[in-house]
């Protein structure tokens, strides 16, 4: 069972990491947009 849970947890860690990278990218672009508006 530990292998099963390890595989499912690993899957969501990979997807979660990618989503976190996208959120970081979005924040960076948003900051840059605000700077350009000034």
């Amino acid at each position, binding site marked *: 069972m530990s292998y*099963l849970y390890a*595989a499912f947890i*690993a*899957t969501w860690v990979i997807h979660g990491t*990618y989503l976190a990278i*996208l959120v970081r*990218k979005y924040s960076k*672009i948003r900051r840059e947009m605000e700077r350009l508006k000034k």
Partner: protein
Amino acid sequence: MKRAIPILAIVTAVLLSFALYEALIGAPTERTMGDVQRIFYYHVPSAWTAFLLFLINFVASIVYLIRRNPKADILALVSAEVGVVFCTVVLVTGPIWARPVWGIWWAPGDIRLTTTLVLWLIYVSYLILRRYSTSGQTPVIAAVLAVFGALDVPLVYFSIWFFRTQHPSPVIGGGGSLDPRMAHVLLINWLAFLCLAFLVGWTRYQLEVVQREVEEAQALESLLEGSR
């Protein structure tokens, strides 16, 4: 489309939760491997989703090479990026499943495993090229790489049909038999992953569009400052 995204996000979350429940509890336990076989419901749909995304990348790259359409270039980039995420899931869940079943994490020289790893490396190289190359020709070079890289997809898929390998035969269309209840859970999980891939891909597409607009504005700003 903006209104459809929150609805799709809710549908995807519900579908993923249901698919997870079905994979862990709803699906029947396989007789030989036991509960560890349930990794199949994440491993196989992730592979199918990655193949589909690399196919989209291939088509978008050809369209870009013919028409130089920036939308096709963005679609190629996004499909490769999300495809690499799903391919990573395949490469991580595979060895975790292999260890208790085969007794080894990785079968060196196995054609299915090696071609999958090569596929992942090709698309990671594609993303590195797009990220760090400063040449104006980067989208063209990347599109050519993507067209050749896509040749590995049928090689990965059909490798277990034509070569002796540690990897089991395909469960659908390869002569193997799959319990209808297992097939049902497999398809639910694939549908859930497809919704997730579309949702993440669409968000990433919009992000790339805005990023390119910001980069254009930055270039214009530098130009104006230079002329003062």
